């Protein structure tokens, strides 16, 4: 067995171009850990007491602001002046870790601005094909048994620039910023529907918001009775205005737009309403000119957040490749990572707990030797679905005729193929396809 100078044994390499065994992450066995210490050749300066530790620090605030050094960690806005069109705010995944998107960084899409709802006045009505129409105030709903679950929410148009025939040079935030993950707490919708008594003719619910456009979507009753929640809390606090304060529908795994915010009305019907958003916006056109309708599910997907476009690797050596994986049909079962553009793959470690229909963080150690590399991830879920390779995806769903220039546009929806980052010898990262 040949041993490299840096102490990385060939045995620890599990795939080409320096991908290392994920066992190295688990801290099991000093022998393995010891085998991959990368000595830093530059000697450290002698330590001295720092300025900030020799004066009284920042006084505590009621609502804690983050460090002033974190100002770059922010959402990007598509319509900052609130012109009469949709506003998108994208999550900066390249700066985040773990699986929880902080509330102020959770992506939002608001079509007509977030309504400034007085929670004491807000009402939710359940009516239509039910035995007894009912009205609920927030106070009353807050007395119901609460259920918490981790769930991602993803816009059907997330990753739309990936339909470009040439890779757009953009950050993971610009490409995949319309997905986020949080712990949502609220009341099971089935409890409320049972109280109203759904008529046997009922097959759909129409959910509607209290926003200016009274945004509405049709949802199969099956889903409403399965795992749907009327969410009141987001990561422990009342949900943010942009996410539907004081209550939103939470349909784990289903297209973001269906998770109706500022929820004020649920109507049980025998047919879908074919609302503007379902019949127009969120029905993707296929290469042959036909279109999908009722594209409810956000299918299995993953992308590498670190390292990614916008950062430069300063020197060869140890890095951790990390990202998020999620599926609208269940738990992530496996994530494989390549560092040689898909020639060889190695399984990444999944950070538990692995929740269904929620972000799972994956990691794999990587020893970059300074030569060009192409890194990408691919996910499998427990229902047997696998993230399609780009060639497979494009064969089915097509790509745009011209390269995508407008990163804020939505040439199509529901992209779930791979994202690959090319690392050049100078450490710069570009977006590439393979």
């Amino acid at each position: 067995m040949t041993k490299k100078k840096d102490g990385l044994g060939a045995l620890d390499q599990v795939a080409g171009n320096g991908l290392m065994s994920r066992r190295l992450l688990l801290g099991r066995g000093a022998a393995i850990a010891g085998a991959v210490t990368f000595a830093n050749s530059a000697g450290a300066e002698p330590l001295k007491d720092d300025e900030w530790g020799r004066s009284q620090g920042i006084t505590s605030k009621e609502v804690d602001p983050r460090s002033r050094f974190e100002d770059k960690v922010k959402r990007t806005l598509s319509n900052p002046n609130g012109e009469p069109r949709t506003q998108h705010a994208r999550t900066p995944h390249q700066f985040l870790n773990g699986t929880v998107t902080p509330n102020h960084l959770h992506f939002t899409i608001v079509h007509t601005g977030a309504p400034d709802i007085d929670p004491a006045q807000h009402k939710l009505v359940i009516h239509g094909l039910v035995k007894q129409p009912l009205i609920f105030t927030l106070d009353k709903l807050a007395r119901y048994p609460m259920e918490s679950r981790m769930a991602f929410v993803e816009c059907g148009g997330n990753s739309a620039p990936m339909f470009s025939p040439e890779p757009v040079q953009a950050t993971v935030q610009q490409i995949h910023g319309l997905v986020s993950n949080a712990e949502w707490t609220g009341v099971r919708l089935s409890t409320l529907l049972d109280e109203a008594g759904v008529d046997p003719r009922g097959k759909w619910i129409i959910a509607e918001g209290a926003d200016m456009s009274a945004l509405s979507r049709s949802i199969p009753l099956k889903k409403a009775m399965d795992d749907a929640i009327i969410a009141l809390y987001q990561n422990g606090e009342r949900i943010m205005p942009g996410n539907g304060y004081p209550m939103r529908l939470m349909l784990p795994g289903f297209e973001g737009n269906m998770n109706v915010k500022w929820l004020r009305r649920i109507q049980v019907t025998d047919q879908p309403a074919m609302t503007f958003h379902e019949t127009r916006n969120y029905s993707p056109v296929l290469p042959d000119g036909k279109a999908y309708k009722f594209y409810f599910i956000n299918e299995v997907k993953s992308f590498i957040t670190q390292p990614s476009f916008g950062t430069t690797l300063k020197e060869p050596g140890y890095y951790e490749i990390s990202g998020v994986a999620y599926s609208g049909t269940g738990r992530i079962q496996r994530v494989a990572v390549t560092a040689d553009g898909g020639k060889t793959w190695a399984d990444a470690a999944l950070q538990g707990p692995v929740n269904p229909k929620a972000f799972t963080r994956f990691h794999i150690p990587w020893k970059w030797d300074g030569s060009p590399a192409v890194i990408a991830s691919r996910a499998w879920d427990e229902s047997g679905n696998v993230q399609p390779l780009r060639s497979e995806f494009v064969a089915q769903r097509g790509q745009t005729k011209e390269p995508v220039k407008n990163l804020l546009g939505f040439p199509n929806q529901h992209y779930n193929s791979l994202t690959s980052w090319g690392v050049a010898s100078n450490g710069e990262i570009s977006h590439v396809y393979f």
Partner: protein
Amino acid sequence: MSTSEIMSISRITLLAGLLVAAPAIADSPGLGTKITEADVGAWSITILPDGTNLPPGSGTAAQGAKTYAEKCVACHGEGGKGGPYATLVSDAPLQGRGIEAPKTIKNFWANATTVYDYIRRAMPWPNPRTLSDEEVYGLVAYILSENKIIEKDAVMDAKTLPQVKMPNRDNFIVKFPDKI
């Protein structure tokens, strides 16, 4: 049987029903306030494709043209084209223009009822739900007739609107039939 006897029998039946048929509901907090369907009224604005919930009244393209000139033209342009926001009238096809083909009412929308539902709930920006039901019928007639989907003198009402055949209606594939 006396009235009180009938009442007590029905109370027993009711109780038995609750205990046997729906224990989950009996345990449920039951904190909702009852409301009648009639009182949901102003909030119940969803129009279903079969025409359910379309209001009384009617409108024609000529009537709609007047409302359009007053309340819509600034954003949607003369005759529904060339405005700063969404194009409402267009002959541009969907097919042959790739997966990014711009969707229009004529080349994409499957149901004419959606045009009514959407204009009534969301337009005119930023003063939605200020149009009368008649005005909405007129605007729908105007937009459909400018798009040559209906005749110029067609009257749109609760009966005729759901019967309008939208050109792209049969072009959709249900993506996840097992989820419905």
